């Protein structure tokens, strides 16, 4: 079965420190990978995606993610965390080459908490 795993329910980081939110995937072919962020009682917002090419992709709000094909991972990173980064983060994958409904496979989410 196709799946996306986020092994950490919660990540706690001090403001100014680097942060990493982990994601691994088990999706056939060469999937497209995404990160979304959700603030309380809001919909999800797109942060960044990996399609092809450079393994390090940059996105909104200073976030970046590193694609590692051999480890089937797509970890979200930020060099210096802000309190305003506190939110729920979702990793997602779409099977590559699937041209019909782009069925999105979401991870279970990781709550990121940045302490001042």
């Amino acid at each position, binding site marked *: 079965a196709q799946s996306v795993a986020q092994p950490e329910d919660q990540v706690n980081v001090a403001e100014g420190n680097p942060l990493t939110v982990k994601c691994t995937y088990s999706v056939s072919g060469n999937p*497209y990978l995404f990160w*979304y962020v959700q603030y*309380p009682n809001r919909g999800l917002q*797109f942060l960044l995606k990996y399609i092809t090419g450079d393994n390090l992709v940059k996105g909104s709000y200073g976030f970046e993610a590193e694609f590692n094909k051999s480890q089937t991972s797509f970890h979200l990173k930020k060099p210096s965390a802000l309190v305003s980064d506190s939110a729920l983060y*979702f990793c997602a994958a779409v099977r590559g080459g699937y041209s019909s409904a782009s069925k999105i496979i979401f991870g279970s989410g990781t709550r990121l908490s940045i302490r001042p």
Partner: protein
Amino acid sequence: SQTIHQWPATLVQPVGSPLSLECTVEGTSNPNLYWYRQAAGRGLQLLFYSVGIGQISSEVPQNLSASRPQDRQFILSSKKLLLSDSGFYLCAWSVHRPNTEAFFGQGTRLTVV
């Protein structure tokens, strides 16, 4: 530019009552449309997705149904709500290319009492 509207934002309904949540997309045509449910601020459960008018795929058999009467309108319904239907419902759309991101509505908080 494209926008997605989802309403109502919050809803409190008694057990056994019907449900209708509506989602519309503007600024694009023939989108993929999705309904997700999120329980207790955690993971997303895909309920239904649609690739076109009248084409609905159900992911999880349950007390809910979906319809797409127009190209950019997606409706989530129930004839009789259960307590377990409470949750945060999200509508989303994407274009018919798997390498593009989805765009989400602001969600509907449904509480069944």
